[in-house]
């Protein structure tokens, strides 16, 4: 047994030895898993950026963007991360409050996200709208707003995500708040009978929908584009609501503790350049922040955009989530 322990100790020490990757600096980006996956934008961005930067770009995937932020929070100033990529409009204020991020020097004047973006600390790189996705064959006349959705018979089922664990679920809380304001509580109690279940993550919800467990799923306006482009399947559509769809802007920020500030800024410039942005639509299935032509298969953008201010979101999120959950108990 003691020999085994010794072997383990030796293994641990060997593993702990720093990896020598030559003289090239390594830029480390914490992000969410889908971004770093083989088919996500990560590998393509790595290839493109490493061609010119004289560095190694390393993506470290957490299970979600909030997971990436939590990890940086745990690591504090000793973190290996230079950049956290994938935070969004719902979480950026919380990230800001940690005091771990610094201002960037990327020129964002060419970028165009709905409602504009001029925060000095985070760089927007893509955006999307939350929407309910459905099968066109099953639903020739989709609801055009929340009211129509709530008025459908109770047998009409939707699957949504838990706001405590999944970005779209949190987005829905803000969406309902933006539309219904003080009467959100009543709106939730009208919506609740339609909710077949509330899942912990987007993928579970989306798969329940694909398997036929629900008529609609809370997802993104870009989801049908995936089916059209990657699967040549035209049978899905996203419902555009006339009161507006809620916006999600994805951003990246540089950590104060990063010893590679210049390189980090260079990467964010590349990410928001035409070369970087062209990768986004069909690898991350979001709209690029730089106005470039979208591939065929993407729907036109929703006519109306809803977005609550960051500070309101940060101050009230906990209460609004509690208000929503109360309707489901």
């Amino acid at each position: 047994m003691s020999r085994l322990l010794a072997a383990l100790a030796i293994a641990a020490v060997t593993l702990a030895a720093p990896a020598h990757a030559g003289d090239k600096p390594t830029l480390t980006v914490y992000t969410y898993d889908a971004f770093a996956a083989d088919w996500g934008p990560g590998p393509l961005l790595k290839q493109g950026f490493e061609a010119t930067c004289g560095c190694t770009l390393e993506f470290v995937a957490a299970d979600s963007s909030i997971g990436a932020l939590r990890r940086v929070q745990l690591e504090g100033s000793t973190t290996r991360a230079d950049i956290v990529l994938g935070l969004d409009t719902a979480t950026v204020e919380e990230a800001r409050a940690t005091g771990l991020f610094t201002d960037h020097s990327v020129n964002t004047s060419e970028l165009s996200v709905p409602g504009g973006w001029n925060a000095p600390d985070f760089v927007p790189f893509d955006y999307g709208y939350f929407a309910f996705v459905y099968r066109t064959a099953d639903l020739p006349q989709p609801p055009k707003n929340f009211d129509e959705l709530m008025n459908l018979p109770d047998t009409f089922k939707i699957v949504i995500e838990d706001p405590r664990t999944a970005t779209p679920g949190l987005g829905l809380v803000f969406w309902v708040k933006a539309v219904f304001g003080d009467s959100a509580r009543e709106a939730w109690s009208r919506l609740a009978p339609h909710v077949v279940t509330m899942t912990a993550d987007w993928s579970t919800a989306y798969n329940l929908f694909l398997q036929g467990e629900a008529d609609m799923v809370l997802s993104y306006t870009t989801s049908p584009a995936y089916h059209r482009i990657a699967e040549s399947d035209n049978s899905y559509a996203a419902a555009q609501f006339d009161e507006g769809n809620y916006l999600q802007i994805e951003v990246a920020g540089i950590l104060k503790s990063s010893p590679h500030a210049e390189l980090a800024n260079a990467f964010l410039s590349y990410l928001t350049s035409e070369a970087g942005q062209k990768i986004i639509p069909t690898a991350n299935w979001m709209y690029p922040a730089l106005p470039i032509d979208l591939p065929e298969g993407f729907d036109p953008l929703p006519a109306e955009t809803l977005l609550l201010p960051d500070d309101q979101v940060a101050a009230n999120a906990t209460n609004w989530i509690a208000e929503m959950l109360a309707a489901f108990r």
Partner: protein
Amino acid sequence: MGWIVGTAILLFIIALFVALFSAPANEAAPEIDMASLLSMSLVQASLSTLAATASGTAMAIALNRLDFPGRSLVISVLSSAIVAPAIAVGIGLLAIWGRAGIVADLFAAFGGKWTGSIFGLHGTVLAHAVLDAPLVARILVDRLDAIPPERQKLGQSLGLKPLSRIRLLDWPAMAPALPGAIGLVFLLCFTSFPVVLLLGGGPANQTFEVAIYGAVRQSFDLGGAARLALVQMAVCMALVVPILLLAPQFGQTSAGRRHVWKPGGTERAIAMLIVLAGLILYVTPLLAPLFRGLENGGLSHVFASDSFWRALITSLGVGTLSACLTTLIALLLARAAAASRSKTSRAALMLPAYAYLLTPAVVISLGLFLIVRSLGLAAENAAPFALVTGSVLLSLPFALSALAPATATIESRYGKVLESLAPSALTRWRLVEWPLLRTAIGTVLAMAFCFSLGDLGIVALFGTEHLATLPWAINRALGAYRTNDAAAMTAILLVINFAVFLVLPKLVAGRNRNA
């Protein structure tokens, strides 16, 4: 030696909590409603345990009454439910009972409409019954088959009525095994995570594990998560300790069936019905993911992908390593427990092994992460260690419950002789322990391997780039619209698990399978 290992596990768990409590607190975290959480978890776990135990017992008695070709295969299949990844069972249940499932199709074929929903408390209870009733059935059918032939023949000649037979013959045989089985099932249901997340239907049905996950993810309330975990552990301890103290030491395990008392007529028909219903209820959810995985060309797509093979190799490596370590640690603990004279010290030795069942995966992963950080190690480099540690702790309770009866038998049969002869450790192992333990060791190896293969929980914080396991690859595919790939990989995972679980024990046990 066993004491050292036991203490080390306990210290490790304590260190996890210390790390969590000393992490910076989040003042803005929402209040945790402990009371309602506790009552929700208790109600769910009690109902699930009741459902699993009742149906498992019925299944065991029915199987005991019958003798048909393929009976041993049925029993093997039943026992492999324990190694089915919970999430595959969830998917399987949906494929059967969901709105677009087979039951709904059957209703539609006869002009009806299936309006039941699988989501909610009843869905959770059903899923737990599917996962755990076969475990109960497996444990009990062994006990029933081991009823001495003389007793059965006596009962037969007295013409015992069916109910009297259960009361006078079956019950005394099952009773000693029941507390342990019920305790284990209750713990599994009380701490259940993926099933409740998938089928619970939302915030109305939660377990502590789910709430802990929320406290970490949403509000970054590590102290709150640790408090929740401690309450969960306290409740489980209150349950496990009495069982470990009071449950009679299991004697010798099944020596195989030597006499079959087959009833006739109605009783036989009922038994057949129960077995058939049990098979449909328990086995179809396991088969459904297999069929889904073979459809839609997911399999060929997956086989062509490098990352799948990398994930598979990683998983197999981690599985092999944790299977060996688990067996080693369980052997040391079981030996020490068998050698100890008092029930208290025996319980003290077994307790740390159960600690993992009580310690939420997210606590282990977070705590380990913090410890690794405080030692100045890079998290990525510690990931394999974390993964193996998590898997070993996960499998230990099951490993112990399989090994402890066998080591106890050795102690009671040969303890005195071994003491007086005092053979060398090697001789003792070669001549006495290995021949008598190899059956149990085979089971333990297979079980630990399968558990570690299906485990997702622990890697998330450690970075997933260099250590993507098969469950992680499944999750990743699901997160990127790649449903067919995920289904194919789930099927592969199930096939590996079933194959290992059915074949490995036989290989290790060699010819003396009933030792």
